[in-house]
């Protein structure tokens, strides 16, 4: 019941909808009471042969009139209450979405995409059901039960009513007993379904591996086994599901037995009429659904409450990125100065610093190269620069302003970041490139694509710049995706461009082309390139080598080769392997 209190803000906001909706629902329930009484009276006058054309018209006309009234009332309450519940779902969904849009990286690390999706879909449906089915069941069970019982007492007297209604609470208990069982069975059925889904997903994704080994028959046998298990689980669901209706039939039978014996003897003793007995049986029928509803009400409310709590918990999470309200609103520009004493990931159990003693200064217009093994801290350093984490010791300044003092809007606008794996949206190539500003012209888009050496590729796509990419569109190769992402960053002409291993799938020749373009086009702007491939960074003004979060080597390419350390070793190895292989295979090895 708490959940209704928690949703009160919404009911208040939409007072008119709910006052009207509940009034119509109430009218509907009351109107339901009329026709059984009329049928009873009709029966008595027919049996006693006292029926006149006037009271025939009164009884049957009354039944027809109330049927029509009920139709109108029903239409009215359904459209009001269900509109309200859909509105509630819509409102909460927008809140959640807006919230997702502003949350930080740690939030997205804590919550998986699937869970966040579930909050915006399943959880909201459960809350929505409280405001539709929940309200209906509550009003139905309270109002219908009270009014039916009152009507019964008025029409047939309290004794028969009491004895006749006595078995019905068993129905509530029965539903309450079966519902959790049904829920458990249903949960295990859903689990079985997702096991099957995962299995088939894997078989389809790995179809080449399976064909290679000729294991088709075995894989089908494995699938069949899982299907057999699923059938067993679903049989159980079917069994429990099949029990609900018959349970009502059997419990109602108890009431009918009472009606026949006790009601019958009341008729014989002339304490009630046969017509009243007929009314009684119709009233009994009216009670079945509210009893069912009462049994399920608690479930609906419980689930709605749990879902609402989950949604509220998510909504109450705060973004860790601190937004300086009176921050600098001008675009960040100028020399970049990173002085990081130490940084540890907030969720790191061992409290191992991911970065330590980093001091780098890059003048505007210069290029910094960062190399190092996987996990050496390259990406971490860039994450701090992107303000995905603010909890470090030290300061990062752009144009001698601490980056935390900029407004996020001003700061991020100045930065272009391209990762190794880049997400593309399900829209055209054009809109993906001009993602930062969908009003940019085709010339702007093409210019950016040319700079990223991607223009030619786009022209060879089925519909050129109008080709859909993303999940349902054409699939681009790794190298094409990287170049699209570079174009997407370049179109903003960022003060600081960060390429985080963003050329890894691009072949050597194209890489050279892009780097040359960047050098000539970005003389005033700062570029940071983190890479595995030495060829990506060898022309940078300064190169740093990271190891275990610390700078171990630094200097120009020539300096580092002369130093004869890790960098020099890597350079020699890669020169042999990578470049020749790429050459031998022509333009785009990474694109295979």
């Amino acid at each position, binding site marked *: 019941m708490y959940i209704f209190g928690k949703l009160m803000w919404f009911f208040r906001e939409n007072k008119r909808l709910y006052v009207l909706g509940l009034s119509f629902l109430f009218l509907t329930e009351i109107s339901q009471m009329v026709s059984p009484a009329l049928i009873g009276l009709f029966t008595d006058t027919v049996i006693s042969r006292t029926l006149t054309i006037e009271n025939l018209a009164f009884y049957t006309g009354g039944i027809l009139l109330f049927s029509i009234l009920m139709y109108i009332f029903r239409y009215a309450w359904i459209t009001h209450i269900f509109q309200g519940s*859909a509105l509630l779902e819509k409102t909460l969904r927008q809140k959640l979405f807006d919230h997702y849009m502003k949350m930080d990286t740690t939030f997205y690390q804590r919550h998986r995409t699937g869970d966040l999706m579930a909050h915006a879909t399943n959880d909201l449906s459960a809350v929505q059901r409280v405001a539709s089915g929940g309200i209906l069941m509550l009003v139905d069970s309270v109002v219908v039960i009270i009014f039916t019982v009152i009507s019964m007492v008025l029409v047939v007297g309290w004794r028969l009513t009491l004895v006749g209604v006595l078995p019905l609470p068993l129905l509530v208990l029965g539903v309450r007993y079966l519902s959790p069982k049904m829920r458990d069975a249903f949960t295990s059925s859903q689990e079985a379904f997702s096991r099957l*889904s995962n299995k088939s997903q894997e078989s*389809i994704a790995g179809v080449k591996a399976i064909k290679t080994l000729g294991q*088709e028959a075995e894989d089908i046998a494995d699938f069949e086994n899982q299907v057999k298990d699923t059938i067993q689980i679903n049989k159980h669901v079917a069994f429990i599901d099949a029990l609900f209706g018959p349970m009502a*039939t059997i419990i109602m039978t108890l009431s*009918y037995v009472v009606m026949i014996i006790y009601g019958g003897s009341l008729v014989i003793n002339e304490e009630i009429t046969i017509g009243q007995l007929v009314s009684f049986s119709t009233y009994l029928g009216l009670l079945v659904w509210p009893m069912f509803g009462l049994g399920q009400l608690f479930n609906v409310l419980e689930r709605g409450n749990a879902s609402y709590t989950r949604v509220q918990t998510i909504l109450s999470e705060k973004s860790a990125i601190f937004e300086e309200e009176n921050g600098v609103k001008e675009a960040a520009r100028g020399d970049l100065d990173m002085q990081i004493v130490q940084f540890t990931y907030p969720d790191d159990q061992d409290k191992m610093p991911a970065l330590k003693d980093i001091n780098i200064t890059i003048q505007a217009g210069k290029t910094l190269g960062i190399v190092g093994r996987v996990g050496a801290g390259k990406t971490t350093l860039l994450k701090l620069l992107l303000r995905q984490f603010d909890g470090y010791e030290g300061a990062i300044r752009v144009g001698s302003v601490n980056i935390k003092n900029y407004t996020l809007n001003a700061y991020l606008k100045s930065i272009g970041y391209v990762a190794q794996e880049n997400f593309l949206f399900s829209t055209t190539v054009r809109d993906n490139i001009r993602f930062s500003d969908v009003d940019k012209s085709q010339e702007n888009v093409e210019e950016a694509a040319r700079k990223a050496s991607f223009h030619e590729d786009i022209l060879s796509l089925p519909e050129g710049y109008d080709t859909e990419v993303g999940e349902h569109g054409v699939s681009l190769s790794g190298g094409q995706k990287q170049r699209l992402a570079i174009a997407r960053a370049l179109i903003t002409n960022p003060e600081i461009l960060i390429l985080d291993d963003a050329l890894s799938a691009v072949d050597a020749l194209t890489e050279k082309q892009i780097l040359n373009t960047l050098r000539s086009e970005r003389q005033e702007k700062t570029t940071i390139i983190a890479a595995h491939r030495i060829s990506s960074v060898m022309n940078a003004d300064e190169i740093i080598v990271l190891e275990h979060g610390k700078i171990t080597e630094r200097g120009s390419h020539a300096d580092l080769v002369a130093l004869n350390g890790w960098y020099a070793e890597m350079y020699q190895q890669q020169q042999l392997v990578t470049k020749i*292989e790429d050459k031998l*295979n022509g333009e785009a*090895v990474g694109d295979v």
Partner: protein
Amino acid sequence: MSEKNKSVWAKSLPIKEQLHVIVTLIKLAKPFRKMFFGALAFGGVFALLQAAAPRVIAYYLTDYLQQSDNVSLQIMISFAILVAIIRVSQAVADVLNAYYFTVAAEYALEDIRVQVFSKLHALGMHFFDQVPAGSLVTRVNNDTAALADFWRFFMQLTFVIMSIIGAYIGMLTVSVKATLLMLIIVPFVIGSVFLYQRFSSSLFRHMRQRLSHLNAQIAESITGIDVIQEFHQEDRFKKTFAKVNNDYFNARFKMVKADALLLEPMIDLLLGAAMFLVLWYFGVLSMSTVVTAGVIYAFTTYLNNIFSPLESVMNLFSPFQEGLVSGYRILGILSDETYAPAQNINASESITAGEIEFKQVDFSYDGKHQILKNLTFSAKPGDTVALVGHTGSGKSSTINTLMRFYDFQKGEILIDGHDIRDIYLKSIRQKMGLVLQDPFMFYGDISSNIRMYDDTITDKQIKDAAIFVGADKFISTLPGQYHAKVQEGGSGFSAGEKQLISFARTIVRDPKILILDEATANVDTETEALIQKSLLKMRQNRTTIAIAHRLSTIKDADLILVLDSGEVVERGTHDELLKQGGRYYDLYRLQGINETNLTI
């Protein structure tokens, strides 16, 4: 969202297609007909019992209660017991009907699910290269699951029809004339059902379309959140979403209104009208002749029995439509004919030595663009042939034809002197080991990933294979070692580790022919060295066809084929090609690499 994705909900199936789908789905359920008919029989019993109870009570009211001198406590108890027996049997028939029908539907749909899954495995790589994996997963799982609604609709429909027939039979036993009068309502019932069906199905489709659009929008915004925030597009996305959210709300509200107008309230209105009609008739009748309480009781109860189950059928209309669309898509897969290339009938030769010969092989994926032209080369047992060339030069196609993933159109591929089509497929799969560029890991553990269902492979053989390829070292550091869990897609393992496990998977089968689609994966230098060493070992005593990126493979290959647009433009050993001074030489010289540095 692309048009392709929208189309499912954007248009309804033509009636002819619908009928075809229904008929085919019913045919597919034939093996389970006993269970379906059993369920129907119980449904019939239920309907009759449901009609019997009011009849008994009506009899009791008229013949006993109305003539009170007739009745004793004993008679009342007997009636109570009779009604109780009827209703309890009715409940039992109800359980059996619902349970058996649902279970029969479950068997039927799981059977179709297995058929779809098996069918997929019978299809060729050509099919998988064309159809996105995600949509196939949906076919196998979600579409078959939607068939449950298809069957549930039929169950409710037969149930309703039987209830109505039962009720009419019951009415007939009470009053023939009144029953005939009640036939007037049948067209109204059918009319309202059709009216609702017409309105709801397009509204429902509209709503579903909006919903899937909405969900896609949320999912994409969550996955792309980094990019959105980086480019500061939060406000744009919020606005777009507000529109999508509102569209869905509107679509849904329309559906609510249609339901309120035509569903439950309408059925109750019709019930009220029928009630009016029957009572008016009996009222007028009672003025000239005797009408008993039982008659009135029976008719009002039967009318309820006719109308109340209607709503549940109408509620199932939309899911039924959904089931039909799913069925349509499933049948699409089941009738697809992009089969894997077939071997010749009576193909019985096997691979023994591993000699390969391509004789003037032509190959095209689509019959229009020639991918391989007149490809000719041979490899003696134990030889290594390296394929070098640009993307699209025909390297992968050569492997695809050799692996029988695709059929070639002209020429001959001979293995050990036999036409490749005369070798039975199992021998090809066992004796030709393909090492994939992107090794695929299956959910399970390390052993199961190496064994891959082949139960004849012992644990020792698995360990030996792992030792041979150099994977044993990292496997033994894992918790549980060879039984260490492998998650979907092998997450948690590095690219190099996955590569080594897939080597072991190939080697444990001891193939005669090794086919390498060499990876250009980003692995660190140390792992690369390990992979190189392993590859060298694997190639010993095996015929090897390699799409070569690695110098070591190229340098000591017995034959290097330089491919361009499906044609061999140069062939020879490394030294020969260098001497030849052609394309290979150019590529090589371009690097200015000193030969002494070539060993890796």
